[in-house]
């Protein structure tokens, strides 16, 4: 990206969830389900002395993408770190179920999920976890009919149970800013020790879990610049490509073959991970 492009582009990362959804949908087709004025908020946060957000940090936007019916599910990373509570997670799960139902009724609704989340909202514990499981089931159901595209743009990235959801998507798009991982850096350090993973070492963290590396190692399909137009173009390209021959989560044998090449006795390096995972997951 040269200076002129940098000045002229509209950053995708800097947009809030609602604006991101608007930019991905065809112009003028945005409409919102369970919008903030319906005030479907978390019933649990208030009781714990935490201020709620009117949409529970979750935007459900309907419209069209490339002329086809679509729903964009935008997590707002600013509110409670994009964590999944009972309401916010149910908004995603319910939308995916409705989109699959549409497809069974001959309406080819597709879905884009904007992952900006640390995973489950700890204040809502099991209810959030249960709803994340429903999201997983919803993605697996819908991806039989249409590609389900996940985007993690940053700055939060995608962690915890929602990184599993990202892994279940037909395609995953990432930017250099975003990170993708099951456990966050502080959790890994706490469990495995600072010699294994120093959670203050940001270059090291990005070298393993940043989406540039995740793309190199085949866990992210498309690596896109922080540009709203480029992001929309990437989404359209992937929808036009149609469903992949096999989703990442269906390539079990291929992943096991790669994993068997990893020597857990040796401290991993990003280059070594790329050398092994870069071979792909064809079995």
């Amino acid at each position, binding site marked *: 990206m040269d200076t002129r492009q940098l000045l002229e582009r509209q950053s995708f990362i800097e947009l*809030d969830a609602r604006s991101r959804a608007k930019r991905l949908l065809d112009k003028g087709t945005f409409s919102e389900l369970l*919008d*903030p*004025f319906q005030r479907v908020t978390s019933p649990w946060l*208030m009781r714990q*002395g*935490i*201020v*709620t*957000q*009117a949409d529970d*940090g979750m935007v459900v936007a309907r419209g069209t993408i490339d002329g086809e019916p679509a729903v964009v599910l935008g997590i*707002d990373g*600013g*509110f*409670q770190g994009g964590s999944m509570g009972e309401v916010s997670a149910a908004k995603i799960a319910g939308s995916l179920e409705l989109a699959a139902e549409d497809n069974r009724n001959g309406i080819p609704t597709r879905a884009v999920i904007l992952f900006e989340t640390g995973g489950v909202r700890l204040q809502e514990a099991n209810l959030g976890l249960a709803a994340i499981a429903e999201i997983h089931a919803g993605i697996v159901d819908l991806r039989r009919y249409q590609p389900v595209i996940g985007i993690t743009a940053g700055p939060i990235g995608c962690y915890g149970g929602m990184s599993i959801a990202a892994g279940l998507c037909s395609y995953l798009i990432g930017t250099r800013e975003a990170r993708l991982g099951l456990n966050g850096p502080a959790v890994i350090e706490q469990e495995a020790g600072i010699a294994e993973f120093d959670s203050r070492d940001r270059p090291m963290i990005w070298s393993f879990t940043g989406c540039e590396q995740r793309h190199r190692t085949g866990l992210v399909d498309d690596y896109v610049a922080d540009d709203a137009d480029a992001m929309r173009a990437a989404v359209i390209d992937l929808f036009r490509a149609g469903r992949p021959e096999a989703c990442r989560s269906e390539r079990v044998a291929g992943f096991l073959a790669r994993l068997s090449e990893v020597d857990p006795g040796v401290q991993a390096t990003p280059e070594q991970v790329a050398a092994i995972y870069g071979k792909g997951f064809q079995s």
Partner: protein
Amino acid sequence: METIVLEFPAGQPAQGRALVGVVASGDLEVLLEANAANRTVVNITTSVDGKGRLWQAVLERIFGDGSLPAAKLEINDSGATPGVVQMRIGQVFEQLKSTGGA
């Protein structure tokens, strides 16, 4: 967490509704809807306790002269500074004018 309700004089009912902001650290969310003429009601839920007088003073500066449209405002605040509060409220009325609401 604390809830504060404040009332101010206002003009004609606001046309439409609008939303700005995020309940992120140091920020706030403002939802604006129409109210009956001549009165604006602001419902504030804030993560910071004991700042009722500060809210009264900041909002008095914005609404005190009664020139803004009559509205019901809901503010969900996560520790925004008075400057941010003033900016977000300005933005929500701006949005109301430019788009006729969200």
